[in-house]
């Protein structure tokens, strides 16, 4: 597409716009109790028919697609890091404003990895297989960020 500019360009020749949607979501019979649990300093998982425990709890079994009765059991607060990534430059959407690890954490009693943040201070404190435990916020509202995880040694 040939387009020749004949006159001075208004500076800067770019537009900025922001879109905002203030969502309020209902939580339902499984995520509701899960987030209520976080507010109350308990981490809940969902027992599956084959004996596994899903964390976060789901309303269906990801292996079979079958609906799960919300049989919630407490897991953690300690767990093991299954894999991790070191975030050197956190974004404004991340749960911590300084470098941290995202990790899949197999909480004690769970059969799946929970994605969450590990506030480890520095990358050399992180190892696959290390033990971590929950560190609760003072003010909790029933939200994923009511908790972060820290190395068990530092807790």
């Amino acid at each position, binding site marked *: *597409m*040939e*387009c*020749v*500019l*004949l*006159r*001075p*360009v*208004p500076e800067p*020749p*770019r*537009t*900025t*716009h*922001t*879109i*905002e*949607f*203030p*969502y*309020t*979501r*209902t*939580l339902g019979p499984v995520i*509701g*109790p899960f*987030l*209520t649990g976080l*507010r*109350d*300093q308990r981490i809940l998982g969902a027992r599956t028919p084959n004996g596994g425990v899903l964390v976060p709890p789901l309303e269906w079994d990801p292996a079979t697609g079958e609906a799960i009765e919300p049989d919630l059991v407490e897991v953690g607060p300690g767990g093991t890091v299954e894999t991790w990534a070191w975030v050197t430059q956190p974004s404004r959407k991340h749960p911590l404003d300084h470098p941290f690890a995202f990790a899949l954490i197999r909480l004690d009693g769970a059969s799946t990895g929970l994605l969450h943040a590990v506030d480890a201070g520095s990358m050399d404190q992180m190892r696959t297989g290390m033990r971590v435990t929950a560190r*609760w916020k*003072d*003010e*909790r*509202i*029933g*939200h994923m960020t009511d908790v972060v995880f820290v190395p068990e040694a530092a807790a």
Partner: protein
Amino acid sequence: MSAADTAPAEDGPVTMMDYFMQLEYHELLCPVVRRYASQLLEGRLVGHKCPSCGLVYVPPRGYCPICVVETTDADEIVLADKGTVTNYTVVTPVQYYGQEETEPFVRASILLDGEGGMMNLQDIVDVPVDDVHVGMRVEAVWKPPGERNVDEISNRSWGSAEGCIDGWRPTGDPDVPAEQLRDKAF
């Protein structure tokens, strides 16, 4: 800190969750809209006239979607800043998040005189909203040259001249009969 030290913020089950979604975008103005914007600053409305069907696009898009042909600066024409209201709606603002208007306002389609060109979603000023009607003759209310800006012009302005034209006011000329404005609603 143990569980006993910290009382939960609230009792009772958590049933709702707020999420404030905010995304910010920065986009380069495309060349045809840059050209349109710089002409607006000079007090001119320009568009592209399709070399195939003669339809006039304002702001220019760089193509005619009806004929599927590209249009270039060679197809640019200067448009009239007078025209006729071909369609309109009165918006009574509901105070949803982000709505800054509080009083009923008009959004009108204006068919420009001469070569044509449709300006959509235009504000009609200097007249009560109840008096706006199809066929009404209007003219652009330009901001003085020193006060013009194109800050709100984007690649998808859809006929916006915001920052350069404050709206359109009645000229007082006799109305154009509505029958002559069929198929010019938008």
